């Protein structure tokens, strides 16, 4: 079993038009920028992107949006200081936005990975973002019924990975990676360092290899930090 893929180009080569893709990261931490660049070069369009943010400036998801490759985005916080690409496409109606509270986004992704059919969450009860959704009072508290979010692909960034797909992350760059890895048909991880099978302590593996299809090393391995972009 060897999930190491020699290049990002090869790793993203089979993404078809119309695919749904989860993209890890919060702010810049944990965003697989290089893999997104490879997808830009690959050319897939009509994409649905599931991610916490919608990118800033011309980087990452903003690049995909700017190029008109994205038809729908599911996220919690698209508006940022320099989210011009998103703002333009959204206001012109070319881009559909499904706005999801951040914790519901994480939990709905987890539900997809965990085989949960739906769950009652207190978050967003009584707000615009729960309009039209089923609600229920349970033990005196009000809840909204939310459904799983899955995807064809998950693009995530981890710190170290092995040929079996086991991953560990680095600090707050962990964020959405571990849950997204469980909820996509094909999870691709770019890692700062590929290590030998057996080098990761089984007690500290965050994403067991079963959730990962492809691992690509990006940039030189640093002993003391992640690749800068």
């Amino acid at each position: 079993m060897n999930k190491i893929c020699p290049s990002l180009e090869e790793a993203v080569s089979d993404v078809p038009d119309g695919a749904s893709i989860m993209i890890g990261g919060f702010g810049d931490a944990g965003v697989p920028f290089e893999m997104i660049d490879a997808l830009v070069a690959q050319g897939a369009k009509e994409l649905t992107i599931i991610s916490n943010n919608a990118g800033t400036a011309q980087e990452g998801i903003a690049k995909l949006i700017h190029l008109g490759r994205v038809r729908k985005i599911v996220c919690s916080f698209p508006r940022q200081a320099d989210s011009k690409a998103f703002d333009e496409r959204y206001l012109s109606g070319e881009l559909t936005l499904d706005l999801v509270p951040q914790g519901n986004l994480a939990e709905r992704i987890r539900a997809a990975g965990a085989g949960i059919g739906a769950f009652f969450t207190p978050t967003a009860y009584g707000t615009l973002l729960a309009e039209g959704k089923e609600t229920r009072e349970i033990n005196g508290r009000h809840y909204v019924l939310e459904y799983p979010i899955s995807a064809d692909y998950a693009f995530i960034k981890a710190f170290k990975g092995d040929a079996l797909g086991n991953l560990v992350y680095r600090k707050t760059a962990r964020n959405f990676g571990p849950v997204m890895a469980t909820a996509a048909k094909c999870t691709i991880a770019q890692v700062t360092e590929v290590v030998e099978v057996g080098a990761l302590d089984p007690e500290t593996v965050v994403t067991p290899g079963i959730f990962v299809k492809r691992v690509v090393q990006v940039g030189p391995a640093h002993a003391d930090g992640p690749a800068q972009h």
Partner: protein
Amino acid sequence: MSQDFQRLSRREIAIRVAADIPDGSYANLGIGAPTEVADCLPEGVTIILHTENGLLGMGPKPPPGEEDVDLMNAGKQYVTALPGASYFHHADSFAMMRGGHLDYCVLGAYQVSVKGDLANWHTGAKDAIPAVGGAMDLAIGAKSVFVMMDLLTKKGVCKLVERCTSPLTGVACVRRVYTDHATFDITPAGVVAHDLAPGLTHEALETLCGLKLLRKS
């Protein structure tokens, strides 16, 4: 009605909030003004800070040049991790909030209603690009949710209201509101005003708010 009183500075409000968070508490301080509460904790008090992007035991910002691109808070500012910290993924982090494990959460607000409804994610302006982030999760994400805000908008409109006109973030979730004019407790009996700014009378505050306010018994 006299305006002859001394409004609290943002720092003074933060000091009041900090004084109400007991030693040994777990807290999440929202983006913006609430972040200042961390700097106002009394000497010797240990409050463990949570940031929803996956860190418990958050420390202050790093010295210049020691920023780590993988270590930030929910406001996307560089932070540090204190000894005894732990990292976790987003589902675990929001489970920690939703499950009621944090003792305190301190948030900013556009409006708070007398029933504790919170509006802080969307002004309600048409054509505004919506973004919610963790606001709705934070609103229900602690045993006690505190709001820290100026009482009046720049145009002088009171933000403590009978009923919120801005879109809600959460329903009946706020327990106490710290402002530059006074501190307000949201109770089943009504809103209790206390710790009024020096020189401000209860009656003057009621007039400013356009609300009947209870006195602390």
